[in-house]
């Protein structure tokens, strides 16, 4: 029994349908608890006032915006190396979710920045990097949409994802070089002493968990949708072919 067994669409669907209810429920609970906890029951920051509450949306969505791209990268590599269709479709399914995460991170970042920096948009390196990431997502989705043949589309988008990853990282450093920025340091990190205070930390963790679960649920569901669309396509192709064959025999 190997993990690759789930590369079979039917097996994948069966497993994904079994875990999905748990994922959806977990996501709902975590997001509900985390956001309510964060919004209603945490104090204001002495410096940032109540805007600190935006952290519960901003940090998880930013994390997931990057993780979604990373997941697409891994899925693309699996498709290139092992040619599992489900993997390519999972990458396709994740992209729009990544777009939404990036949008949330951008919007909340801009809204957060407004009272802090006195302007809606600042060309802060992090915000700028997310804007560039957003453009990469758009290109990736547009390329999927533009190509008729699904396997060609999978190949081309997979290569675009690899190349895009390299350039996204390059852009990140380029942007850092270009503008040192207003953004505060990372809110969460393992090696730094200076983390956000515990009061904010625990609800934030719950929210991050919620975003991760929601992402997984969405991607599994969307991958299922893509598999069904692909199956519909294959069945219809077979239908027209056997129809023409029958017509010729008659």
């Amino acid at each position: 029994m190997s993990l690759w067994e789930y590369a079979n669409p039917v097996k994948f669907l069966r497993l994904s349908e079994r875990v999905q209810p748990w994922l959806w429920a977990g996501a709902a609970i975590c997001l509900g608890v985390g956001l309510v906890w964060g919004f209603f029951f945490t104090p204001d920051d002495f410096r940032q006032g109540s805007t600190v509450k935006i952290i519960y949306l901003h940090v998880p969505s930013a994390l997931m915006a990057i993780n979604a791209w990373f997941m697409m990268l891994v899925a693309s590599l699996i498709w290139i190396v092992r040619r599992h269709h489900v993997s390519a479709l999972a990458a396709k399914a994740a992209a729009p979710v990544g777009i939404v995460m990036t949008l949330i991170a951008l919007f909340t970042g801009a809204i957060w920045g407004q009272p802090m920096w006195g302007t809606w948009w600042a060309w802060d390196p992090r915000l700028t990097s997310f804007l560039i990431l957003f453009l990469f997502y758009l290109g990736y989705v547009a390329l999927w949409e533009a190509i008729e043949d699904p396997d060609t589309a999978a190949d081309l988008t997979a290569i675009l994802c690899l190349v895009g990853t390299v350039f996204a990282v390059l852009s990140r450093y380029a942007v850092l070089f270009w503008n040192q920025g207003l953004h505060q340091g990372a809110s969460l990190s393992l090696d730094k002493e200076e983390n956000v205070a515990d009061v904010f930390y625990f609800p934030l963790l719950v929210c991050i968990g919620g975003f991760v679960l929601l992402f997984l649920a969405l991607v599994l569901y969307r991958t299922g949708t893509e598999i069904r669309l692909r199956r519909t396509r294959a069945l219809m192709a077979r239908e027209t072919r056997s129809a023409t064959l029958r017509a010729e025999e008659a």
Partner: protein
Amino acid sequence: MRALFFRDLALALRAGGGFGLGLAFFLIVVVLVPFSVGPQSALLTEIAPGVLWLGALLACLLSLDRLLAVDWEDGALDLLATSPLPLEGIVAVKAAAHWVTTGLPLVLAAPVLGVLLNLAPSGYGVLVLSLALGTPALSMIGAFGAALTVGIKRGGLLLSLLVLPLYVPTLIFGAEAARRAAQGLDPATPLFLLAGITLAVLAAMPFAAGAVLRVNLR
């Protein structure tokens, strides 16, 4: 390989090849800038390096959608694919021809257009140098984009959407170098980084573009 390079040059220079269109576009963009931001010399001086870089980048983008599409439509790409030339080499050579017919004229025209924008005297040399270092990467990245969109009807817009984000690092370092020089600062660091990116792109991108082309020819 050499034959392909010279054929592409000849095609670009003959009537209907579109040589000079990029240059004309560059000129028009630069002329339009003062109309949109106002004629104050000080302001123009300040934005000149950035405008010139952006104009050159857009002019470069303009002719990319025909880079491979012409050969795709008339069947030449199929025939080239059955020839002894590797696809990676074909894309690289076509990108090189694109640079010579589009990028190089832009590099040479940039200082003349710099006069129109009142570029600071200290900026000219580094502007030309940064464009000379950066535009080969623009052509090669563009060839990758052209290979991605070659089979798509009206792929021009999609090509821009795919290629422009990939241009970000080159634009940042190139324009930064030109700006620093114009302000009398030391442009060495961004120039080195720009050259590094171009070298890496020239070394690695033909393989990505070749792989993409192979998928599209399938």
